[in-house]
């Protein structure tokens, strides 16, 4: 039987700080976020401004990670790219969290809504997310906002299922009965008790959504439906190097490593959170 948990209590925090993946992932992420936040200070060059006489320069003292075919500094573009990547990831996570909670909680709590909502989610899940995002981008045009919409649409079905599963478990617990018996309204029960107790699995899921969003944004940009150029998104940088795999492989390699660092940090963080917050989930 699942115990109602109080996330505000210090115990989870202490356990989190004792979790090695959480601490390593957390430190890595903080470093990356700082690098992104301080990009204007750290970046040695203007990420958008190129010198076409220095195009496709290999890594060297002037450009540590080389330049692209505009002669733009890859390192500077990566630093600014991290901002974009993290911002898109964070916004997707927020959107997926809100929509997923709304849909999942409604489906789990109001029985009549369950079937139609879940069928709709099934239909969305049956679409490969990348094609869905392509279609959205083709429809609305490629922009940062539309990438977020596309990724949120693609990740919401799974998030809503996580929330629904938790709601189904929690709603049957005694303390919900207790709340109902003292005359709490349905909405209040849903908000106060059920959702609070679904927060653990949701936080864990959203950490992974963040990681998925960073990966998917890169794939979308690579296919050409990501944030429009000259935005230095990781996927855009990789796509820009596609024609120069032989002559300038550094354009392709460096942003991939940056993606790995961010996603690795998020996955570690998610593992740590999962171990502490959601003992039921153990993939």
């Amino acid at each position, binding site marked *: 039987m699942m115990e109602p948990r109080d996330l505000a209590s210090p115990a989870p925090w202490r356990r989190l700080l004792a979790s090695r993946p959480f601490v390593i992932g957390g430190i890595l992420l903080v470093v990356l976020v700082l690098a992104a936040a301080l990009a204007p200070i750290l970046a040695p060059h203007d990420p958008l401004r190129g010198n076409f006489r220095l195009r496709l320069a290999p890594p060297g003292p002037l450009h540590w990670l080389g330049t692209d075919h505009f002669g733009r500094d890859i390192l500077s573009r990566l630093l600014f790219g991290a901002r974009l990547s993290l911002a898109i990831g964070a916004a997707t996570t927020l959107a997926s969290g809100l929509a997923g909670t709304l849909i999942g909680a409604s489906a789990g709590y109001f029985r009549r809504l369950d079937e139609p909502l879940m*069928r709709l989610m*099934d*239909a969305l*899940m049956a679409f490969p997310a990348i*094609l869905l995002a392509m279609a959205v981008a*083709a429809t609305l045009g490629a922009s940062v906002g539309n990438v977020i919409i596309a990724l949120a649409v693609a990740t919401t079905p799974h998030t809503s299922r996580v929330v629904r599963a938790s709601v189904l478990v929690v709603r049957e617990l005694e303390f919900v009965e207790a709340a109902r018996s003292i005359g709490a309204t349905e909405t209040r029960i849903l908000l106060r008790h059920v959702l609070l107790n679904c927060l653990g699995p949701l936080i864990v899921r959203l950490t992974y959504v963040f990681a998925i969003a960073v990966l998917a944004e890169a794939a979308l940009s690579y296919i050409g439906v990501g944030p429009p150029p000259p935005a230095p998104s990781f996927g855009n940088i990789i796509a820009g190097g596609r024609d120069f795999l032989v002559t300038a492989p550094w354009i392709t*390699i460096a942003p991939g490593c940056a993606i*790995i660092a961010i996603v690795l940090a998020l*996955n570690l963080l998610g593992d740590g959170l999962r171990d502490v917050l959601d003992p039921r989930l153990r993939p």
Partner: protein
Amino acid sequence: MLVAFLFRRLGGAAVVFLLVSMLAFLLVWLIPGDAVAVLLDAAASPEETARLRAALGLDRSPLAQMLAWYGGLARGQLGHSLLLNRSVAEALLERLPITLSLTALALAIAVVFGTSAGVGAALAHGGWLDQLLMGVALFGLSVPDFWLGLLFIIVFALGLGWFPTGGFVPISESLAGWARSMTLPGLALGLTQMGFIARMARSSMLDVLGQDFVRTAEAKGLSRSRIILAHALPNAMVPIVTVIGIVTGALLGGSVVIEQVFSIPGVGRLIVGAILARDFPVIQGGLLFLAGVYLLVNLIVDLLYAVIDPRVRLA
């Protein structure tokens, strides 16, 4: 029981199908531009555009197009591609073996290596091998598959010349050629999913190894290999099989990008091309088709689940 189960599931699938086709139509309505633009260069006059649009049947109202399409579907027809000079069904069927062989190879790589790594890690629980394997699995999860594909191209195709940079050779033409053309994309796609399966297999195996019946088997004095292979693994497979369903979905999605990277003429590339070229009947048919594959895989997973675990009732 099985029949009732299948019946119920097919009913659910029909609903999802209908929703998918409606979503596809919605997209087709919303996406600006049409196939005429792909056929014409930038200097085409408005009259030429209109004439060609009429020739392709694109001047009908969206509602008329939708009704015509559902009418065709009712007769079992997916319609005719606007550009490919063949029916949508033909276009899909000629791509099917390609995408299937790619996803099957990637799935095999992911399952075989993932399960072995996961089981190995569970058996070495807490040791250096466990840490190493799980580190690799986590790393695998964090690598973008398309980027891994590009890296493979740089190193193994362009650098060492061991494999072609892309394209597809049918098995019927040459088994060695097929293997060479599928190795890099299969690995790029499979390795990233391998991490997922390895983590699942490890935790599932650890879970099972801690269970009473394993202790019973120990108490019976059975050999270690017998305990692992005959007792622990079949039980550990139950959650792994569930993950395989999810992984297959991810692989189908991943194959869309990998087919771009390696220029493989699969279903994903067909649909991407159709979206870019506004070949609406192909978009419709292709999305419906992928949804069908996804639903079918999940149905198979459910059946497999029941085969592996006699406690599961198909209801």
